[in-house]
């Protein structure tokens, strides 16, 4: 039997708190799960620094990847024998679902911003490079790794296949919303996925939803909206992200200046600082390694690096206030000067954080063909964009709420002499 079609002697199951069971019968899926590159995802948290706000949010990209695989497996079960669905694409869909986040690094968001990296490039590199994952995929077919990479990269010829893993209602989003809600313990983020799976229909270029399933999809869109504001963009989590970015900047600055002697040299970070990150270097750096450095760097001679690491490890985060750059940008300039005058470096202890700094996609109805929207299939067969049928979705697809906060090390300001003019001035500006 060809490796592509090979089945395990008996089905393997993973217990899962969101989907109850994750079922694996295909040999190739089982082998991929066992690779070091996939096991590495156990050491990358799904929500980065969110665990500092919601203590339950310790789940990993490993959990999520299995979850996405399971949802795609169930969708394909439902699609069997339906028009437009080609069951020869089944194993490709399952592999792409399982591997879609393979290139995520530790605290992806901050790392990618600071070091100008893109996890999608590393997903591709792992799938196509000299790795165990590639070795297994090539056993299916020499071109199979490229096909899997193309599906994940959204450039595969069959757009229906792409839409299962990446569209505005896909397995990726359906898993992370439910999983993140479960592990953070919040009550929003839940929706009736079973119902959505039952009303999904394959079409030539995309999945569509039977009109009767509109309310289940409304719930899903509302979940996305609420999870964004209540969990993903939580101001305390953002504070931890700000400090994390500052640590990486400071370590890089010290390293590049070549004048500072680290007690613990940033060996695992060197290629990141020098913008020469090889796949081997990338795979070596997981969150356990990053934490080890941060722990040790608490004892560094450099006061800023040690202070920032202490803040991150001990959860002594920056405070924040609401900030309106439209009306307050002059105050921000003043504040920077005051921080400088007070001997508190504003580069490391003052930051404006905006909602656009966080990668998250609101539902977009696809005006001007920016993104493919969710389509409802009416009983006549006609397709209608979701927000044109649903008042609820229309109401949150219009003018978007955006948000800016000013983060700062309040404790350092409090330590300034009580009667100092600069302290008073800083408080005046902060209090508006």
């Amino acid at each position, binding site marked *: 039997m060809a490796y592509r079609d090979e089945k395990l002697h008996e089905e393997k199951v993973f217990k899962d708190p969101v989907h109850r069971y994750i079922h694996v019968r295909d040999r190739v899926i089982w082998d991929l799960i066992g690779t070091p590159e996939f096991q590495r995802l156990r050491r990358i948290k799904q929500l980065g620094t969110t665990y500092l706000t919601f203590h339950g949010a310790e789940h990993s990209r490993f959990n999520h990847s299995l979850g996405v695989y399971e949802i795609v497996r169930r969708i394909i079960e439902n699609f069997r024998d339906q028009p437009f669905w080609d069951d020869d694409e089944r194993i490709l869909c399952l592999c792409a679902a399982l591997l879609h986040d393979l290139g995520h690094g530790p605290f992806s968001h901050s790392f990618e911003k600071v070091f100008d990296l893109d996890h999608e490039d590393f997903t591709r590199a792992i799938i196509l490079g000299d790795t165990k994952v590639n070795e297994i995929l090539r056993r299916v077919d020499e071109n199979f790794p490229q096909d899997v990479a193309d599906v994940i990269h959204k450039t595969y010829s069959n757009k229906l296949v792409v839409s299962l893993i990446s569209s505005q209602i896909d397995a990726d989003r359906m898993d992370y919303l439910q999983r993140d809600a479960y592990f953070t313990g919040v009550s929003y983020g839940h929706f009736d996925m079973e119902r959505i799976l039952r009303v999904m229909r394959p079409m030539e270029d995309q999945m569509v939803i039977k009109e009767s399933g509109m309310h289940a999809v409304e719930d899903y869109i509302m979940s996305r909206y609420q999870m964004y504001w209540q969990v993903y963009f939580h101001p305390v989590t953002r504070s931890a992200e700000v400090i994390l970015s500052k640590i990486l900047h400071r370590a890089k600055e010290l390293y590049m200046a070549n004048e500072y002697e680290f007690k613990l040299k940033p060996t695992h970070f060197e290629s990141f600082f020098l913008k020469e990150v090889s796949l081997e270097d990338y795979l070596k750096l997981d969150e356990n390694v990053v934490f080890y450095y941060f722990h040790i760097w608490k004892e560094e001679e450099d006061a800023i690096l040690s202070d920032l690491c202490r803040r991150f490890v001990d959860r002594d985060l920056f405070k924040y206030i609401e900030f309106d750059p*439209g009306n307050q940008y002059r105050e921000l300039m003043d504040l920077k000067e005051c921080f400088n005058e007070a001997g508190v470096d504003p580069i490391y202890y003052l930051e404006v954080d905006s909602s656009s700094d966080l990668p998250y996609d609101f539902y977009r109805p696809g005006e*001007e063909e*920016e993104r493919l929207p969710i389509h409802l299939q009416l009983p006549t067969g006609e397709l209608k964009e979701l927000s044109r049928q649903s008042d609820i979705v229309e109401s949150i697809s219009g003018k978007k709420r955006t948000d800016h906060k000013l983060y700062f090390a309040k404790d350092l300001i409090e330590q300034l002499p009580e009667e100092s003019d600069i302290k008073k001035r800083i408080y005046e500006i902060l209090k508006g």
Partner: protein
Amino acid sequence: MLEDHARLMAFFEQAQEVVGRKRLQKMVYILKKCGFDFSERYSFHFYGPYSEELSTRIEELCNLGFLDEAKEKEKGYYQYRYHLTDRGAGFLSESGVTTPNMDAVIQKMDEQSSKFLELVSTMLYFDNFSKEEIEDKVRTVKSQQNYTEADFEEAWRFINDMKH
């Protein structure tokens, strides 16, 4: 702080006016590919390279009153027209962000249709492939657009002009 916002505002200042969200997405992508420093990350979507970060940042600039967005009805669909406001220009001049002159590339893009910019940006998305592979890839991912040999030739000329 807010440097990414300021860089976008500098683009709007130099472009004076941008009509269409799709066009805006493709213009910033092409500028990025020409080496101009925009931080917004792009990935491939149904209609070519698209940045959710850019969409959100544009919404922020509008909400802050730095950018004006006018919604207009055009042949059965809506399109959006953007220009920098006085408040935005004020912020930009005080931000201290220095931006290179993008005028020449912006002017070249202004002379082209959105559909053409979509083709160019999609070709640039695959620029790590050979010329033949890029054309194959574009034909695969945008099969419904039915691009002709002449379209590709014109797009290649445009890309070469821009990069030199």
